[in-house]
């Protein structure tokens, strides 16, 4: 093991390489992932090392190859599938929701379904409405599925390794705006434990800010803005959408008494609504003001740069929400 400064993209590739070396029953399928190394180059060179049987280009047929992953998993393999754009999860929704997620319980717990689904989503790259969704909330209400959201190279590395080793279906929602971001990664690590809950990235005592994926970085930028005003924000990366545990957020709120949630999705049905519900249940008396959810507006994401930028929660919008909470509680 050696800690190296690598990109999010390299972290994904390294995790795939290490786990495919470790377990000969792993294989990866997806569109253009073999010889061309994937549209986002997260599988570059894998086919040279592992061959076309285990690194497999598929037809453009998500229902077909995601369903095939279930058949492989039921017969002793540990398949990994890449969904080129998370938006395409909609194309294979049935195979994931009615097949992969349910097969184990419907069998009375007699089968295992070790499928890893990697889906690269997210806005900020001017890909317009059909290629920019994080799809975080789409499968939030599907029991039998684990969902993780890596916000940094280290998280991308460890979550993917953990997902591949997990005996259950895991949806890893990666973010394309983070692919070139750099950070320290414990390359060669054998510690591949799946995260169980949120992580505090920056401690603070005045307001808790919870975010996922690319919004984590923006929340940290917002914390810098707030620090200039003397407001100490505690920034949490939610990390795990399923199985869902908001108790760490409630614990933070017991200290800060204020809660802002930042989600790169529309408000309706988003994870931040679930976090708020749980925090209200667990720590109602500690909240000095109603939590604020900073989300995408309720329309499909526009293409033009100023229009896309307007829609995505910015550090300023996040900081403004925190300042409002401070004012509303007589501390602004």
């Amino acid at each position, binding site marked *: 093991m050696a800690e190296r400064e690598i990109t999010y993209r390299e972290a994904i590739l390294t995790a795939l390489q290490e786990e495919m070396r470790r377990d000969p029953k792993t*294989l990866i399928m997806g569109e253009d992932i*073999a*010889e061309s190394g994937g549209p986002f180059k997260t599988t570059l060179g894998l086919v040279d090392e592992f061959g*076309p*049987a285990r690194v*497999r*280009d*598929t*037809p453009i*047929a998500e*229902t*077909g*190859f*995601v*369903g*095939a*992953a*279930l*058949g*492989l*998993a*039921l*017969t*002793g*393999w540990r*398949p990994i599938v890449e969904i080129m754009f998370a938006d395409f999860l909609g194309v294979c929704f*049935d*195979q994931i929701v*009615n*097949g992969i997620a349910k*097969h*184990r*319980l*419907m*069998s*009375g*717990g*007699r*089968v*295992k*379904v*070790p499928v890893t689904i990697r889906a690269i989503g997210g806005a900020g790259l001017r890909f317009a409405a059909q290629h920019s969704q994080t799809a975080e909330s789409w499968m939030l209400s599907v*029991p*039998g599925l*684990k969902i993780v959201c890596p916000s940094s190279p280290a998280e991308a590395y460890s979550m993917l390794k953990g997902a591949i080793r997990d*005996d*259950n279906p895991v949806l890893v929602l990666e973010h394309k705006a983070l692919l070139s971001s750099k950070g320290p990664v414990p390359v060669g690590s054998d510690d591949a434990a799946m995260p169980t809950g949120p992580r505090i990235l920056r401690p603070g005592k005045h307001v808790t800010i919870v975010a996922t994926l690319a919004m984590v970085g923006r929340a940290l930028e917002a914390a810098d803005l707030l620090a200039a005003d003397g407001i100490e924000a505690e920034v949490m990366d939610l990390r795990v959408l399923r199985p869902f545990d908001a108790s760490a957020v409630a614990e933070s709120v017991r200290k800060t008494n204020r809660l802002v949630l930042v989600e790169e999705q529309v408000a309706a049905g988003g994870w931040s609504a679930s976090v708020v519900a749980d925090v209200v249940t667990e720590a109602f008396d500690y909240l000095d003001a109603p939590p604020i959810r900073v989300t995408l507006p309720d329309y499909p994401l526009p293409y033009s740069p100023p229009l896309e930028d307007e829609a995505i929660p910015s550090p300023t919008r996040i900081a403004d929400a925190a300042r409002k909470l401070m004012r509303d509680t007589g501390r602004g």
Partner: protein
Amino acid sequence: MKKPAKAAKPATARGKAAPKAARARRNDAAPALTDADRVGLFQTMIAIREFEEQVQLSYLEGLVHGTTHLCNGQEAVAAGVCKALRDDDYVTYTYRGHGHCLARGMDIEAAFAELFGRETGVCGGFGGSMHLTDMERGLIGAFGIVGAGLPVAVGAGLSAQLAAREQVSVCFFGDGATNIGAFHEAMNMAQVWKLPVVFVCENNLYGEFSHISHTTPYEDLVTRAAGYAMENVKVDGNDVEAVYEAAAVAVARARGGGGPTFIECKTYRHRGHSRTDPAKYRHPDELAAWMKRDPIPVYRARLVKRGVITDRKADAIVAKAREASKAAAARAAAAAWPATGRDMAALTFA
């Protein structure tokens, strides 16, 4: 064996030529059936018929919950195809899957108990009539969503190809499934990767309540397979030996690396789509004509005529199967309900 019309040269990944076996290997002769095999086929069909008749009775008694989909009339497909399989082959099937499970040897008491939602069910009461799974018999999944099992069968076929143990993945589905996207994606993938998959289409003329002429541009669904340059054959799905022979050829091709086959079995569903469907949309003449072609009496008459079986022996087989189903259902009905209040996390996640 009908060849695909103008079969295009199959393309494969990385620009390599398709395996020669794909087109060269032809084995049109199925292993010949012995008289003991024939009696076995008859017994399998009877076991399925008597099981389904008992399910109907149990349903009326309130023992089967929700709904159930009976396969009366289609027994020859399950019996004939499964006869051509090995124990380590993989099978996917549908909500109308009791027959396939029984043909693979599922314990009937465990099957009844599953339909009754009991602890002793083959899935502990978690799956029910539409989701009988039994990994020990290669019964890897019953799919309640039309067409959903086909991509899964492709995955099992890929698994078999990678393992190189000459296993085969067989996928049962109805005519209705040939209109959904999953069917087309699965057919295409199986053909382009030359997978050992046998697609068995039980064309019973009705997709749920709708006649095939209302939903599909033609009634011969082998046309679909030709569109994927896939080997295909149309058989009388009510003739158990014809089904067996077609399946044996397809299975041999798959085991030998010759790729997938699409078998269209022309058959008929004696009852409605599910237990709430009286199937009044069918013309009485159509029903009467097909009832005359009921695969069980037709085969019985043939075996008696050939001297393979006597009427007395046939009657004894029926009586024994009826008694076995009745007794198994009674034991299943006496079994305990699954315990409630359990920690379900361990069942949901491994």
